[in-house]
């Protein structure tokens, strides 16, 4: 009985995780500018990771594999937001202004900033 309940719970978690991953992926493609896309990315980085890994751990039971899965989940939850922070910081540093709509949407704006100077004389 408990096995069945755990099974159903883990399948529900896995399905929800899959849905979260999909939503994050679509959001990363459809949202208008960089700072909004970070939100979509963070959904797949944290929520989906949590759901999918807990789902798999419930399936795996209490083994060495589930310990490893737990470690992977922990590291992903630590590193994902950190990487996103680093990225947003790098974007802000090189002058990509956050704002509504498609602002800051010069093609390859980050590098184009100092490139325009080099290219203009030609």
């Amino acid at each position: 009985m408990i096995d069945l309940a755990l099974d159903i719970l883990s399948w529900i978690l896995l399905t929800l995780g899959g849905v979260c991953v999909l939503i994050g992926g679509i959001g990363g493609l459809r949202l208008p500018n960089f700072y909004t896309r970070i939100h979509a990315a963070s959904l797949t980085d944290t929520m989906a990771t949590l759901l999918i890994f807990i789902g798999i751990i419930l399936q795996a039971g209490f083994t060495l594999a589930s310990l490893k899965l737990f470690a992977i989940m922990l590291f992903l939850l630590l590193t994902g937001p950190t990487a996103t922070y680093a990225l947003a910081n790098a974007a802000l540093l090189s002058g990509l202004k956050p704002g509504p709509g498609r602002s800051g949407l010069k093609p390859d704006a980050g590098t184009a900033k100092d490139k325009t100077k080099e290219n203009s004389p030609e």
Partner: protein
Amino acid sequence: MIYIFALFLLTLLVITAIAIVRAEDLFVAVILTSIFSLLMAINFFILDAADVALTEAAVGAGVTTVIFLCALALTGDREKPQKEGRKGGQKIALVIVGVLALLIIYSTFDNPQLGDPDAPVHQHVAPWYLEKTPQYMDFPNVVTAILSSFRGYDTLGEVFVVFAACIGVLFILGVSPPRKSMQVNVKQSGLRHHLIPQVVGRLLIPFIVLFGLYTQFHGEYGPGGGFQAGALIATGVILYALLEGEAEALRAVPRRVLLGMVVGGALLYGSVGIVCMLMGGAFLDYSVLAADPVWGQQLGILIIEAGVGMAVCGALLSIFHAFAARERVS
């Protein structure tokens, strides 16, 4: 089912490769290269090569990107647009490589299909390796057994190639760079004032090094070994260098320690072979190292894997420092 995944991933691989070559911004090309490496690792994993996938992960995720970015910082990251006169030459090149690809594709129809158990590759020595590993070495990872014992000569050669490449980089970048007035402030280098990466990075470094040691000493039982461990530990130290500045990392692991690791690792490998000869066996025949040949094999493999790990870690770190130090001065 998993083959369908592989199909998808291989198609993505081709698309990414074409995008890398078409990208005019070299920085974008380097970023796409890391996607290429991830895709490659998944494909290796699906094709049953867990050890190779781990190597690609350890090398491709950290070291390659960092070294490319260091080089880009020194050379500039924009490809100049091609002159009109060269466009014709490019078309000829496109035709030539297209014909080449078609020829290779045509010739592959004589190849055995993916997964064919009767392919000639599987008939020669591989079954013998699979059969004899439990008997001679008594541990489960056949890849490690072949790498370090059955084909030990080969690996010795590879370690010396890594050694030679490291020495080459040190020779080329070791000469003093042209003098410039710009001197980046050492206090400001690194990600010192970014609190979140600092804290998380400092938390992660011990785990990366620990995981590297795990792959080093668990290599006989699971995927892993000296090559992967060396690259992983090097990545850990590179992370420290990114967080604290390169000079600080050089103080933690000084240059002479790195050189000692490179030379010592290669020498350790070679000297195990010579000790084998002195004890009455052939070069790199570890069976004579202990009274029980199985124990001898295991001891020899443990030592030479340690040598490989030291050499690879030292070499990758020396290369990184050679690039990063030049960035600091110039």
